[in-house]
């Protein structure tokens, strides 16, 4: 079991290194030059060359890569070319906002999706099941940024209930403890609702399928034959068995959620990693892009690993399979 996990970890590190290398090469191979941004269009060739030399962009890619890796390993992620601030400071300020948004929406959409999926599986084939299927497929198909825009139109402009963008009101740092919390929650409402609504669609579709799969299994027939109530069969026998694929899906849905967060953050001007990434990409801010990509790749790989480990923890069958494999 531990050996299997170690193998997976090594493969995961390989993927992260691959992503970082790929990003590094793509950035340098693409047309466009960050030095040009800094010196402006009127600069002479000599000024541009001096700026390129100062940023180290005139050295071979392999040398730049080795130098970057060596510094990154020591915790020095470089300085943002566009803003002049240390990259680590930029990202340290951004990741809690993304983690809060993505984490909360993951939990809420999973719970609501499980509820919907369980109702559908229990009433499979009924009108209610069909209606809920239509709802979940539609939610699954909506682009996050569009849903966000529509929620803003309805709940910020038509009915001014929630603020349309940002994570805190201007001057909210002067508010007292409780008012400040309320202000933060009001700003969180729309981005969270957007990400969660989209997540519910996928989760409900998945849980309905997983529960229906479990329904046909012999152990469910046995449980029924023993005279257990349908509710007990659902809660204690079917759900428990649907938990393993659910945990694995949780890991697999991390990248989707992260990408959803990129668009939702762009719409709501939410100060997270996604927005930092979009802005840095547009400004060709190499150090920031490389660091943000590394972090997102690490999150994705770590999410998959954690999900696998959790699945093995709750399901002894997986442990047995791994031990013999």
């Amino acid at each position, binding site marked *: 079991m531990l050996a299997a996990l170690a193998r997976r970890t090594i493969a995961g590190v390989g993927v992260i290194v691959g992503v970082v290398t790929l990003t590094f090469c*793509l950035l340098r191979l693409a047309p466009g030059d960050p030095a040009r941004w800094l010196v402006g269009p009127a600069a002479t060739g000599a000024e541009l060359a001096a700026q390129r030399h100062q940023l180290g962009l005139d050295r071979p890619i392999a040398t730049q890569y080795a130098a970057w890796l060596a510094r990154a390993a020591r915790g020095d992620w470089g300085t943002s070319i566009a803003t002049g601030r240390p990259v680590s400071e930029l990202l340290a300020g951004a990741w809690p906002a993304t983690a809060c948004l993505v984490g909360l929406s993951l939990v809420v959409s999973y719970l609501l999706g499980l509820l919907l999926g369980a109702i559908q599986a229990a009433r499979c084939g009924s009108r209610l099941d069909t209606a809920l299927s239509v709802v979940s497929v539609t939610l699954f198909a909506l682009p996050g940024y569009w849903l966000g825009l529509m929620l803003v139109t309805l709940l910020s402009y038509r009915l001014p209930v929630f603020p349309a963008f940002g994570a805190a009101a201007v001057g909210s740092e002067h508010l007292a403890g409780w008012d400040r919390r309320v202000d933060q929650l009001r700003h969180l409402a729309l981005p969270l609702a957007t990400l969660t609504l989209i997540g519910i669609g996928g989760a409900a579709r998945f849980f309905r399928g997983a529960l229906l799969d479990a329904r046909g299994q012999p152990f469910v027939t046995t449980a029924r034959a023993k005279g257990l109530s349908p509710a007990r069969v659902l809660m204690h026998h079917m759900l428990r068995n649907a938990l393993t694929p659910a945990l694995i899906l949780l890991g697999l849905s991390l990248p989707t959620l992260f990408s959803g967060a990129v*668009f939702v953050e762009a719409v709501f001007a939410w100060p997270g990693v996604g927005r930092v990434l979009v802005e840095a990409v547009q400004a060709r801010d190499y150090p920031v892009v490389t660091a943000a990509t590394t972090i997102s790749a690490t999150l994705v790989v770590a999410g998959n690993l954690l999900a696998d480990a959790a699945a093995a923890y709750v399901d002894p069958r997986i442990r047995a399979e791994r031990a013999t494999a």
Partner: protein
Amino acid sequence: MSRLLADRRGAFGVFVLALAALLAIAAPLVTSGAPAAQRDVVGTRFLPPLATDRYHVFHPFGTDRFGRDVWTRVVYGARISLTVSGLAVLLSLVVGVAVGATAGYAAGGMSVLLLGLTDFALALPRVVLLLLIGALWPPSATVVVLVLGLTGWMTIARLVHGEVRALAARPFVEGAAALGAGRSRILWRHIIPNALTPVIVAAALGIGNAVLLEAGLSFLGLGVQPPTPSWGNIMASGRDTLVNAPWVAATPGIALALVVVACTLLGDAVRDVYYGEEGRGKGEG
């Protein structure tokens, strides 16, 4: 096909996709003119849906801030969005089938190498790559097709690999070999045609996904560039006029959601019809 249409989801999916394709092809016939046409910006801008302007032109979905007809732009946008997504999925299919079939039928090192490559590509964060490439190269429809196509082939490769492995052990393959067919002939004429059903499901889902991602890229300004209309950039321009003209952003979103729902339902229906009781949709009606 008739079994597919007997399924309500399949019928809905086929109907919506056929309608969208038909409208896109017949765009000049079903709209009031060129998508960039502006007649009199002050007199015709921000007209609400179902309004008729002073030139007696009817606007079913209103006009945007330049007085351009939203319906016309969405229909012309469908041309771009559907073509880009369709070509991207086609590219994914070609790469995915080639890699999957080779990995499934070739032995030893080649197979391991290709499977490793597939797993690696599957673990890459797709949206981050899309953002990077979309931003680094000058944005255009070609770049979007290449990027979406080259980041979407992995699931198809895996499916094809599994199918090919299973089919290669079947008696008809042995029969073909006994008749003297070469390895490549067996693969292309006997195995791959039999491995295509799951590929169709994956492709249907892939088109929905590609439509979403194309719109996302164009929404962020990294895809198809205005004034050429695409669903993503119409939504992006509608974002600035949400307060006085929410219909500009709403209309392409509804069109997009309809197409993606149609792809998803069609994929579900194909899976259930061809796999029947073995599939995931066990016990569904």
